[in-house]
C-alpha cells in the first residue's frame, strides 16, 4: 500500500456512506470474524435490502467472501472460525440457539464460484432440496417446483427434453443456471452469490446477469464479484471491502462515477493503493 493509502486506511474509523436501508431483509451489525488468532473482518455493519442486489467488491483477501459466508453460517464448517456481532434475517438472529442452520440455508441460498451440480439427473438436482424440506406433497407438485425453478433460472427450454440426463452433462453456464434453479427450488428469501460468473464465458455471464436482475423481483441478493463491470451492471448498491474493513457503501451509480473514499477510487480505477 502507498503511504497515502495506508494513512487513509488507518484513519478509517467507520464506513463511508449509508450502511443501513429503510427496508432491510438482512442486517449485519458490528460483525468481527476471526480465523484462529487472525482477524479477517473488522466491525462490519451492512444491511441487505429486499428486492435489491448488493455487490461486494474488493481485492483478494479483503474479507468479502468471508462476510458473505457469514450470512448463511457457511463459516460454521470451519472449526477455527469465530463470528461475533449480530446478523439477523427478518429480525431473527442467525447465530441464536433457536436457529437451525439447515433451515437457515434453505432461507438463505448460495451459489458458488464453480458450478457444483450433484452427480444426479437434472431433475433430481432441482428436486433434492424440495424433497428433503418436504415442500411437495406428491410427484405432481414436485414436477411443478422443478419446472418452475428451471423456468425462473432460464434453463427449462434448453433441458426440458432431457431432464433425466446427468446435471454434469450440461455446459458450464447451464450448470451454473442449474445451481441457481436448485437454490430457488426451496423458495429462499435471500440468495448469496460468490463470484457466480468467474468460470463462465461472456455469453453465459450475460445470461446469469440477466437472471440476477429478474430474480431481484422476488429475492434479496448479495453478490461477491471480482468483476467491477459486473458489480456496476447488476447491483443497486455496492460495498467496497479492504483488508477486512468495509470502507465504503453507496448506490452503485455513485460508487462508479464519484466514489468518496480514496481507497475505493484507487481500487475501481486500477491504481496502486
Amino acid at each position, binding site marked *: 500500500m502507498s503511504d497515502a493509502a495506508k494513512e487513509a486506511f488507518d484513519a478509517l474509523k467507520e464506513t463511508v456512506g449509508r450502511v443501513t436501508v429503510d427496508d432491510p431483509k438482512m442486517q449485519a451489525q458490528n460483525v468481527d470474524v476471526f480465523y484462529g488468532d487472525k482477524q479477517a473482518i473488522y466491525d462490519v455493519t451492512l444491511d441487505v435490502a429486499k428486492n435489491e442486489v448488493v455487490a461486494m467488491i474488493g481485492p483478494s483477501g479483503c474479507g468479502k467472501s468471508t462476510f458473505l459466508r457469514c450470512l448463511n453460517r457457511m463459516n460454521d464448517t470451519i472449526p477455527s472460525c469465530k463470528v461475533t456481532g449480530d446478523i439477523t434475517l427478518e429480525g431473527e438472529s442467525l447465530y441464536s440457539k433457536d436457529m437451525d442452520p439447515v433451515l437457515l440455508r434453505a432461507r438463505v441460498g448460495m451459489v458458488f464460484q464453480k458450478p457444483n451440480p450433484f452427480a444426479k439427473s437434472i431433475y433430481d438436482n432441482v428436486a433434492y432440496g424440495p424433497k428433503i424440506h418436504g415442500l411437495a406433497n406428491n410427484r405432481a407438485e414436485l414436477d411443478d417446483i422443478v419446472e418452475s425453478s428451471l423456468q425462473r433460472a432460464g434453463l427449462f427450454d434448453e433441458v426440458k427434453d432431457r431432464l433425466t440426463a446427468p446435471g454434469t452433462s450440461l455446459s458450464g453456464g447451464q450448470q451454473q443456471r442449474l445451481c441457481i434453479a436448485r437454490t430457488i427450488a426451496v423458495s429462499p428469501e435471500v440468495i448469496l452469490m460468490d463470484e457466480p460468473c468467474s468460470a463462465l464465458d461472456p455469453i453465459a455471464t450475460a445470461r446469469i446477469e440477466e437472471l440476477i436482475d429478474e430474480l431481484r423481483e422476488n429475492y434479496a441478493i448479495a453478490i461477491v464479484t471480482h468483476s467491477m463491470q459486473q458489480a456496476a451492471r447488476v447491483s443497486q448498491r455496492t460495498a467496497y471491502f479492504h483488508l477486512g474493513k468495509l470502507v465504503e457503501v453507496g448506490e452503485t451509480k455513485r460508487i462508479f*462515477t*464519484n466514489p*468518496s473514499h480514496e481507497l475505493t477510487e*484507487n481500487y475501481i480505477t486500477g*491504481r496502486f*493503493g
Partner: protein
Amino acid sequence: MDKLHLDQHISQQFNQELEDIRNRVLAMGGLVEQQVSNGLIALLENDGDLAEQVSKADYEVNAMEVEIDEECIQVLARRAPTASDLRLIVAVIKAITDLERIGDEAEKLGRFAAELSSSNQILEYRKELRHLGGLVRSMLQDSLDCFARLDAEAALKIAQRDDDVNAEYENLTRLLTTHLVEDPRRVTEILKITWCARALERIGDHSVNICEYVVYLVKGRDIRHTNIAADNHKNTSPKNDPNLT
C-alpha cells in the same frame, strides 16, 4: 492534472494513454486560444493576411477534435474507465466539442475580418470590440488554465465573468442597431460587425461550458443549467456531503 494521479494506474499503458489525451487537449486549447487571438487582432488591426491565415487554420482544430475523440473512444472501449478516469474522459469529450466550436467562431472572426479589412467602418467600433474581445480572451485563457490545473474553485469564478461579457455584448448590439437605423446604407458592414460581436459572445459561453466540465471532473457534480453563483456559495465537496447515499 496531478491531482487525478493519472500516473498511478497499475497499467503503465493506461497511464500513458491518459497522459497522451491530456497533452493533446492542452495542445488543442493552445491552438484555439491562438486562433481567437489572431482572429481578434486581424479584426482590430484590419489585417487581411492574418484573417486569411485564421480562416485556413481551422481545419487543424477540427482534426485535433477528431483525433482526441478517437483516443477517448478507445479508452472507453478497452479500459472501461470508472470514477475520476471516467469523469476525465467524459469531460475531455465534451470540452473538445466546445473547443472546436470556439475554433469555428475564431474562423468566423477571421472571415469577417477579411471581408471588413477594406472598410473603415470597423474603426468606429474598435474600442468596444477590443474591450469585448479582451474579456472573452481572458475568460477562455483562464478556463483552459483551470482545466489544466483542475481548479474547480477558479472554474466557478471564471464562469461568472460571462455576465460582464453578455452586458458588453448587449451594449455593443444596441450601438450597432442604432447605427443601422440611422444609416441603412451600411447594413452589410454593420451586420458583419454584429456577427463578430456575436462570435465573441459565443466564445464566452463555450468557456463557461469548459468551466462546468472542470467542476464535474474535479468534484463529480453537474452544475450545468444551475445558478452558478448559488453553487459557488454552497460549494460543498461531495466528500463532506451529508446526503451521501
